């Protein structure tokens, strides 16, 4: 297959799936009424964003940024390793996402306990 076309397909696939995840998550957040589904939506958005991080850091033909004797050589030649920074950032982002999800779930439990419903449009005692 034509390498340029191949590259395009891959990029459309990677970016497309990541952006698709974000949109699916947003859809869940904006449309689904169940609290748990909304939290799942938030997690999906997070996943999409994290995927974008990794995708952006990828360099064609690059290896993982872990040095062995061979790796040092490769670096000396030029661009043989993927960008390590997005990987480090995404690690942090994932952990933060986990923390937020945990708090969100606990709030869902609380809300269900108090309101005996998990529909977000039924929980609006605070308004105006």
């Amino acid at each position, binding site marked *: 297959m034509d390498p340029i076309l191949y590259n395009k397909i891959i990029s459309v696939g990677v970016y497309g799936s990541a952006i698709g995840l974000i949109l699916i998550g947003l859809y869940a957040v904006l449309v689904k009424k169940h609290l748990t589904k909304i939290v799942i939506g938030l997690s999906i958005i*997070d996943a999409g964003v994290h995927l974008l991080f990794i995708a*952006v850091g990828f360099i064609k033909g690059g290896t993982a940024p872990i040095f062995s004797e061979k790796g040092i050589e490769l670096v000396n030649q030029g661009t043989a390793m993927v960008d390590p920074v997005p990987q480090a950032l995404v690690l942090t982002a994932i952990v933060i996402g986990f923390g*937020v999800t945990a*708090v969100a779930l606990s709030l869902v439990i*609380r809300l269900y306990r108090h309101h005996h419903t998990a529909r977000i449009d039924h929980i609006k*005692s605070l308004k105006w």
Partner: protein
Amino acid sequence: MVISPVHYIALPLLAAFLMPLLAKVNRELVRIIPGVVLTYLLFVSVVLMQRVTETGQPIIETLAGWQAPWGINLVFSQFTGFLVSLMVFMATLIWIFSYRFKKVDNEPALKYYILFMMLVTGSVGVVLTGDIFNMFVFMEITAIASYSLTSFYRDRDGAEAGFKYLLIGSLASTFMLLAILLLYTQVGTLNMAMIAERMHTVPVGMKVTILILFLTGLGIEAEMFPLNGWAPDAYSQAPSPVGATFAALVVKAGVYSLIRVIFTLFDIQGAYQYLIIMGIITLIIAEFAAMKQTNLKRMLAYSSIGQMGFVLIAFGIGTKEAVFGALFLMFNHAIIKSLLFMSGSFFVYNSTSKDIKGLSGIGKKFPYMGFLFSIGAFAIVGLPPFSGFWSKLYILIAAADESMLALVAIILLVSIVEIVYYFRVVAKLYFGKPTDKEVVHKPTFGGYFSMTVLAVVILLVGFYPDIITGFIHRAADTLLDKGAYISNVLSVGH
């Protein structure tokens, strides 16, 4: 160990990790330690502010031994230093206020102090850091602490407010993450000074997209108009000291980040007009919504949003005088709104309901508390001789200097609305018919102390603003001098 800005972060974290262990030794320690830490940080602020004022140069602390832009650094300039000192000062007072605020001794009551301290640390970190991703991390610390504290009370509305806050806050962090990612792909660095330096290389379309993502994400933190649905709920459901903290620290951190992005990172002129327009809309809608509130804390929340709109307008004008006015207003808002939340909380506790109607005549039971609330109300609407007057005056003068008289007129008209709803409460407090409910909750000594300090500051600054204007002038100059920021941060170690 030399006193340095990292103390603001390291010590509270150390204390936070220690506190669960200390709770096993003595529960009282958990209450006391945040106070000790914050008092020490207040001392740090004094020392560092003195140093910065003397040299006129910012203190730039590299972390982990890596200079900017390779590592993360903390920037304690006259601008960030001013905000940080203000935050720490407020946090200390709020701690004093909330010390034994309610006589409960269960597990969450202890968690409260940890969460509160982290809320402070997160806000301070947002202001201090010189790295955009680190700012995001601190924002998330602040956010998670806020979510938990919002739903701290075990009534049903607390969880609702917390969930709304979390929902919107998560979207904010998503947009901010995306913006940071795109920024990184364009400039290859996360250091804000370096980003600012390289911003001109970014294609315009990409730049605008990144800015929009930032504005949406940070606008949520800064309570900008259509993004602030969470704010009234969170303010009104959180425990009162936390409401004060939101007004005094958290939203300040949000506004700071917005301002830092627009003033330092980007060089797009349209963003300033955008600030003015959004500020006006925020101000108008929030003040109008506050007018019809029946719940005191919710009214204070809307008023807080309105004030933030005012701050954004002032920053949007963008001249030196306007920025000065905006910073002055941030200072005033922190002090005054905290006082209002603190004194208001006692009224709410001791009235029949959370409604303003229930406050009728309660000032007769708490004459001193009513006095403090009135000072706060007079100050926040900008009546002389209280401190709020000066900030309003400076912003209006700055607007008039740019011949934006229509803007001045709008602000003043909205101020009339503000006067109406605050004075309605004041009139009700003193002169409504008192309800015959007995006093269930007397302020603690600490409560009296911190409120009195705030009132004294309001009066002092009101009578003689020059005790504070020097700091604010220098802070405004520092914020506007983008070139100096870049060269100061990047020249460390070179």
